[in-house]
């Protein structure tokens, strides 16, 4: 027994060191990528100018740039970088949360159809030209539709307190098809301007970023990202299953309601401004789990960081690899994400003989 105690005393700091190291690494990479993304593009802004302008705005010396670079930086680049941060953080965290709530490593907003559910709300809003809530209208609609979809998927794919992978994915297939049909109906009735707007939006892109959009997403993303870590320990317990978690004192029903709402908040925030950007919420938590274990106290914040990093870097790539043309970001993440998803399925099959 005494050796076991000693072993544990040695092991725990090691894991903690590793998670600290990963968190620090992710943060550093994120800052670096954000700076690069702010500087690189059709109009290059050197790092020195960038910092000078930022210092000037913050009232810490520095100097303003010429009219054009100053405007490019503050009205085009920065809102886009900040939006990528928010959307990526939301998607990464939503993926990790959803996997925890469903007790299933394949749950992801896009895979199970929540993103397309949110998209129905957003498309309805665009096509019908609704703007009752100003710039928040699309987000609010996406949120309402997303919430409805999460609860529907959840209710349909559970039986006996568990969610089997096959049922979950098939439910996702059905929900995606249904949402696609709804979007089709809206497109059928829309005029050509709305159609091209919706089509482009559906591919997933941050090209239309403005400070207004940043503000529209911010409260949703911030609320979701703030609430999620409070449930980290209880999500760990939920991995034991619903009954055992309850036997350990977790109010499972309440936690599930709260967290599903949080997932819908985060996904809707992301979908409303950027369209469907898939696989971020799948790939990022998976990689983090592989290197640092499945504990949610690390996984939830780190997935937000990692998601933000992937999206800032992805968006930088999307607008620079095919210059002067710009790839839709959702297309890029799907191009990289789907093979990863496939590899994951293969690996699980060979290791444990697949999912029941």
């Amino acid at each position, binding site marked *: *027994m005494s*050796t*076991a*105690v000693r*072993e*544990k*005393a040695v*092991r725990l700091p090691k894991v903690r060191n590793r998670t600290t190291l990963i968190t620090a690494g992710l943060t550093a990479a994120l800052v670096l990528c954000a700076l690069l993304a702010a500087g690189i593009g059709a109009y290059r802004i050197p790092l020195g100018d960038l910092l000078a302008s930022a210092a000037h705005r913050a009232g810490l010396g520095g100097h303003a740039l010429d009219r054009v670079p100053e405007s490019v930086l503050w009205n085009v680049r920065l809102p886009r970088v900040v939006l990528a941060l928010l959307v990526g953080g939301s998607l990464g965290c939503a993926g990790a949360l959803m996997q925890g709530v469903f*007790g*299933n*490593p394949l749950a992801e907003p896009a895979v199970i159809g929540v993103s397309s559910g949110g998209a129905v709300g957003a498309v309805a809003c665009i096509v019908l030209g609704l703007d009752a809530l100003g710039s928040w209208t699309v987000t609010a609609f996406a949120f309402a539709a997303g919430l409805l979809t999460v609860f529907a998927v959840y209710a349909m794919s559970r039986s006996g307190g568990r969610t089997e992978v096959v049922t979950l994915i098939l439910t996702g297939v059905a929900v995606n098809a249904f949402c696609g049909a709804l979007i089709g109906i809206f497109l059928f009735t829309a005029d050509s301007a709305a159609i091209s707007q919706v089509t482009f939006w559906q591919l997933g892109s941050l090209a239309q970023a403005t400070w207004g959009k940043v503000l529209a997403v911010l409260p949703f993303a911030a609320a979701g990202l703030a609430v999620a870590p409070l449930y980290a*320990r209880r999500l*760990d*317990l*939920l*991995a*034991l*299953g619903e*009954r*055992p978690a*309850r*036997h*350990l*004192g*977790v*109010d*499972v029903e309440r936690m599930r309601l709260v967290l599903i709402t949080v997932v819908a908040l985060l996904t809707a925030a992301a979908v409303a401004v950027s369209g469907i950007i898939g696989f971020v919420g799948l790939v990022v938590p998976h990689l983090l*789990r592989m290197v640092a*274990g*499945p*504990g949610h106290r690390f996984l939830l914040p780190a997935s937000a960081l990692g998601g933000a990093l992937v999206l800032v870097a992805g968006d930088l790539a999307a607008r620079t690899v095919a210059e002067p043309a710009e790839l839709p970001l959702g297309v890029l993440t799907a191009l990289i994400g789907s093979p990863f998803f496939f590899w994951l399925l293969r690996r699980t099959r060979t290791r*444990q003989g697949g999912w029941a």
Partner: protein
Amino acid sequence: MRLRRHQEIPERPLPGAELLSAEAVRLTVGGRDLLAGASVRVAAGEVVALLGPNGAGKSTLLSVLAGDAVPAAGEVRLHGRPLDGYGPAELARHRALLPQAAALSFPFPAGEVVRMGRAPWTGTAAAAEDETVVAEAMAATESAAFAERPFTALSGGERARVALARVLAQRTPLLLLDEPTAALDLRHQELVLRVARARAAAGDGVVVVLHDLSLAAAYADRVVLLAGGATVADGPVAEVLRAPLLSEVYGHPVEVLPHPRTGVPLVLPERD
């Protein structure tokens, strides 16, 4: 720092004091009577074996005792208080349940799984001894050797022991064990029941579902025999484990012999 409500640590019950009682419990699911008049009680310091053929309602009764299922009729009392008056957090400091099959959605290391058993005590004075309790529980179940390995990579028997260690680490005065020996070899079956006995000796109440009647005879203080969702016998080992009663309940002729050395009943199916 987060503020927490003041959390009570339940007092250790006196030996012999009644911990839990279920009186004439009925439960109907999908038109089928899973329980139809099942009664069981457990006092501090005793091991009660819950026996009966497949489908007799042993696991169902255990989940009613744990507060998972609310009976349609009858009453379950914990420390004399109706079970539905307890919140999940309070209940978690009073009773622990070992489920039949241990599953885990993510590959947590075995040691981390055992540590999950300490969750109900977070924020109480008892949290100070978390590390010791976890180490003791793993030592008692001989699972310390694979503390670092992912739970999902363990063999069935290893998982069962880790799951038991988690339940022991919860340190509740009442233990409900659903077939804790099912996945285990002979040596570890004995180990698990010795652990149950040790917990009873320390003043806890233990209810254990078993299929091996001789194992129950050797380790239980009292036996509750279920058939068709109802309690058909409740008493000391020697009174309940009689050949005519068991033959009738199990629908197979059974013989009960005293062990040549210890005199403890051995229950064997009659074979040609």
